């Protein structure tokens, strides 16, 4: 079995994020990190390999992004991937969800995995959708927001929460599965794995290398346009304070609740 993990470089959680009013796109300057949800996808791949139920021949980390995204691939390899693929091309810049899903599907076609795993959402906002877009392009079954995977020969049994409670779904392979953070507790990479990550094979591919029609990607190829950026509806900011003396803190909360007749 070959597993591809889709990973993404995102601005670090501590970075104050903003939208560049000139490009109408997220300002991606500043410290970056591997999207935390993707570490759960990598851990899921490792656990399938370690379960021994099926033989996992290869775990490949795949990303699309600018030059700097190599660092996300290094982190993915440190967490267990055997090698990585970096799809990078100026023509891809500014791709929306539809265009990104198409481009990722093309790079995955060149890898022919049995299973594609990814995090259900990214810290910079593209939530829940990309897995299902990729799956339909690849014409394979897909499930998102999965919190448990049991693997067997040729199929998976997955669990996830949907509108009415927990659903259990059987999915034939090949398939695309996005996972939630409840699926596992990702391990920390060993120092040796971090040091060795840069030595693992990394293929850099252009749009043309994987047969992407560049008229379907980038800002021009995207089917959505950001027309304006507006401030959110105004809301009176709440009072936030730090707990220094707990007795005093408790008195303050009680007084606040009493004032509003909540106690």
């Amino acid at each position, binding site marked *: 079995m070959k597993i591809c993990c889709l990973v993404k470089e995102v601005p670090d959680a501590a970075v104050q994020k903003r939208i560049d009013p000139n490009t109408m796109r997220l300002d991606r300057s500043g410290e970056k990190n591997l999207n935390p949800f993707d570490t759960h996808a990598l851990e899921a791949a490792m656990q399938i390999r370690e379960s021994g139920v099926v033989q996992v021949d290869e775990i490949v980390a795949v990303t699309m992004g600018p030059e700097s995204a190599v660092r996300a691939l290094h982190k993915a390899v440190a967490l267990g991937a055997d090698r990585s693929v970096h799809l990078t091309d100026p023509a891809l810049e500014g791709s*929306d969800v539809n265009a990104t899903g198409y481009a990722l599907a093309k790079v995955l076609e060149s890898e022919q995995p049995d299973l594609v795993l990814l995090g259900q959402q990214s810290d910079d906002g593209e939530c829940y959708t990309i897995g299902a877009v990729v799956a339909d392009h690849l014409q394979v079954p897909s499930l998102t927001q999965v919190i448990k995977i049991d693997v067997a020969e040729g199929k998976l049994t997955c669990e996830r929460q949907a509108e009415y409670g927990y659903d259990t*779904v059987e999915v034939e392979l090949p398939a695309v599965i996005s996972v939630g953070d409840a699926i596992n507790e990702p391990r920390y990479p060993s120092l040796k794995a971090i040091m060795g990550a840069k030595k693992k094979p990394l293929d850099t591919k252009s749009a043309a290398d994987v047969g992407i029609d560049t008229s379907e990607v980038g800002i021009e190829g995207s089917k959505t346009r950001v027309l304006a950026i507006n401030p959110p509806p105004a809301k009176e900011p709440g009072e936030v304070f730090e707990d220094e003396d707990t007795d005093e803190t408790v008195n303050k909360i009680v007084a606040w*609740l009493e004032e509003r007749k909540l106690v």
Partner: protein
Amino acid sequence: MAGILVYALHDDAGNFNKNSLGALSEAAKLAEQIGGEAAAVVVGDVSDDAAAGLGAYGAKRVFRAKSAPEGLAQPIVDVMAKVIKDEGFSYALFGGGLLGFEIGAGLTARLNAGVTMEVTAVKVQDGKLVAERPVLQDSAVVDVGYVSDPGIIIGRLNAWVPEERGGTAEVVDIDVELSPWSTKARMVKRGEQRGGDINIEDADILVGGGRGLGDAESFKIAEDLAEALGGAVAATRAVVDAGWYPYAAQIGQTGKTVAPKLYLALGISGAIQHKVGMQNSENIVAINKDPNAPIFEFCDLGVVGDLHKIAPKLTEAIKAKKG
């Protein structure tokens, strides 16, 4: 015709989802403004009366695909793609929830269409729909337009409220051949309830517990505080998925929506998926040790500190106050 097609999700008992009905009501309003028709798609075992009843929420026609199963996205992508192509709908609109994200995303790929998700409002500009989407933890709202037909709009939970306007819809039965890959996922069990039955929707006061509680045992802290306040305990998806608390107590995207007089959040970061289920609470108090937690952006009173120290003392103080 510039029609808007809405997917109406239903449970195993045949009840339509409130967010689907809200999306249909919104579609009906928008369709009037752009000079088109609002219609709905249902799959599986939906009675004539139930399907026609969607007319009360604004559907002129209801396309029913009896042979397609309910509950998994890809067969419904097949159905909606066919209806959109055959009938020339310009937009597909989904109410908040998990399946809307999956079906909308699948349609995007199938029809090479633009998609916007987490949408909180839709407006009409020059006869076209423009979706308003909050981004970056709701610190900005972007207006998104579409450069081709159709446009896919996936709403945020509770973005639209169902409004009955009366009337019945014409029910159109359709046959759809499912794609080979759409039949490769199979529902084994749907809508399983895990943990005990808890009623949180009728409580005036809720104490919400999140991952910051640390473990299942620490829910006792939340329960004690709720008891002192005369309220009930609610939970985030993270702790429910971890098995710390019953699913029936879960608030947010795939859980309940509440608006109590007081929501007191213990160790809850306030991620969007939780926020959408409780942001209409009259008063929100948050205790969290992470000063960067998003909940401090929308609470009324926030304490940066260790809930394990503060909450038990708060419980004692409230008990003492009540005598």
